[in-house]
């Protein structure tokens, strides 16, 4: 029963991926991509990785989907076709052959690796030291906190990179507005956004809070927050901030800064990113809240794009 379900799920994942890649209409392709992302989330749930499932659905499917739709509409507004652009037949054929061979080799390699629980016992043994229950949070914010710290800077850097693309005259204005142009849609989105933002705030706070013991955490919470911001912006409930807004700057850097400061405090007491005994959980929760705020704001602005001179609506 379970096996049949898994088999069907995998086939559907492959099918939706195919459609998302090769559908002529890009909007439909993105729609299928979002479905694909959600199916992936389902796959992660099946694998017992609830944390990943949440992240995949929220970020992989949600944020990426919105990003692609938004880019599509901006490109269409600029008069650019997002062609399916069939490459030359011989190239396609060659690529297909090469990719099949590669896939076969990869599959063989994958088959020769036995699935196991890997480091789970090691991690189980270490969890009591940090006082949180969710082992994924433990890995992300304690055992491999260094990865996560650098990753938070990748996210921040991505936003800076996007800002650097701004046209000369656009700096330091706000990104192009996300406001819906259709009045009816705007009306719906407006009221929905006003309603959603506080809900998102509460939900994000909750996700981060439970994240220390149950699935959830800064990334998932931050994404929900970003979703709330984006909806509110689409409905016109909030405007997008200028890039030199100092409150914005502080909220962007809050998470990475707190993380870095706690890491350095650890270094002053002994070891970089080590938490003194007994304080681990408190410090982790502090980091997670500030990270969630920064991630939420950053993700929302990543989607919104570089500062712009013209108002191009959806």
């Amino acid at each position, binding site marked *: 029963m379970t096996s049949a379900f898994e088999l069907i799920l995998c086939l559907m994942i492959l099918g939706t991926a195919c459609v998302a*890649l090769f559908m002529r209409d890009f909007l439909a392709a993105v729609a299928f991509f979002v479905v694909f992302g959600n199916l992936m989330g389902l796959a992660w749930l099946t694998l017992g*990785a609830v944390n990943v499932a949440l992240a995949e659905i929220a*970020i992989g499917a949600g944020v990426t989907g919105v990003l692609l739709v938004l880019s599509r509409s901006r490109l269409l507004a600029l008069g*650019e076709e997002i062609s399916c*652009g069939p490459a030359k037949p011989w190239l396609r054929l060659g690529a297909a052959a090469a990719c099949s061979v590669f896939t076969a080799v990869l599959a063989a390699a994958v088959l020769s690796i036995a*699935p196991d629980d*890997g480091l789970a016992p090691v991690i189980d043994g270490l969890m009591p030291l940090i006082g949180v229950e969710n082992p994924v949070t433990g890995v992300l914010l304690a055992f491999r906190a260094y990865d996560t710290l650098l990753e938070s800077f990748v996210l921040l850097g991505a936003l800076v990179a996007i800002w650097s693309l701004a046209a000369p005259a656009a700096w330091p204005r706000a990104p192009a507005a996300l406001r819906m142009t259709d009045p009816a849609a705007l009306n719906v989105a407006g009221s929905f956004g006003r309603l959603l933002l506080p809900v998102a705030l509460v939900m994000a706070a909750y996700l981060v809070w439970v994240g220390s013991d149950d699935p959830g955490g800064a990334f998932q919470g931050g994404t929900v927050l970003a979703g709330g911001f984006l909806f509110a912006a689409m409905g016109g409930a909030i405007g997008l901030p200028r890039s030199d807004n100092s409150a914005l700057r502080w909220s962007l850097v809050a998470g990475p800064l707190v993380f870095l400061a706690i890491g350095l405090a650890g270094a002053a007491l002994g070891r970089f990113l080590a938490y003194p005994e007994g304080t681990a959980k408190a410090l982790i929760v502090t980091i997670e809240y500030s990270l969630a705020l920064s991630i939420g704001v950053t993700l929302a602005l990543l989607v919104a794009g570089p500062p712009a001179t013209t108002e191009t609506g959806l």
Partner: protein
Amino acid sequence: MTISTSLGHLFPLTGAALVGLGLFGFISLRHPLRQLLAVNVIGAGIFLILGGLGRGEGVTDPYPQALVITGIVVSVALTAVGAAMITRLAEERRAAGTASDQPKDQGP
């Protein structure tokens, strides 16, 4: 190979297929936005390999899960940068197109 072990490889194998599929998409698709989508499919495939092979008896290894979450966040950040570059390039092309002919790109 028993049914259960082969099924244990189901998700990683799906991941491998996704990698191949995405790679084919990346090579054969022309528009960068579609290539970006293809890259996301490849990424999803890689994560599925990593996570799928971490499924043991009853417990799923949190270590690859954490790596995957990090990977997902990095990948969304890069996708956003790519999307912004694509739209900005289109804007510039349009601005250049209205002013004069698009200057040819240098280099081979």
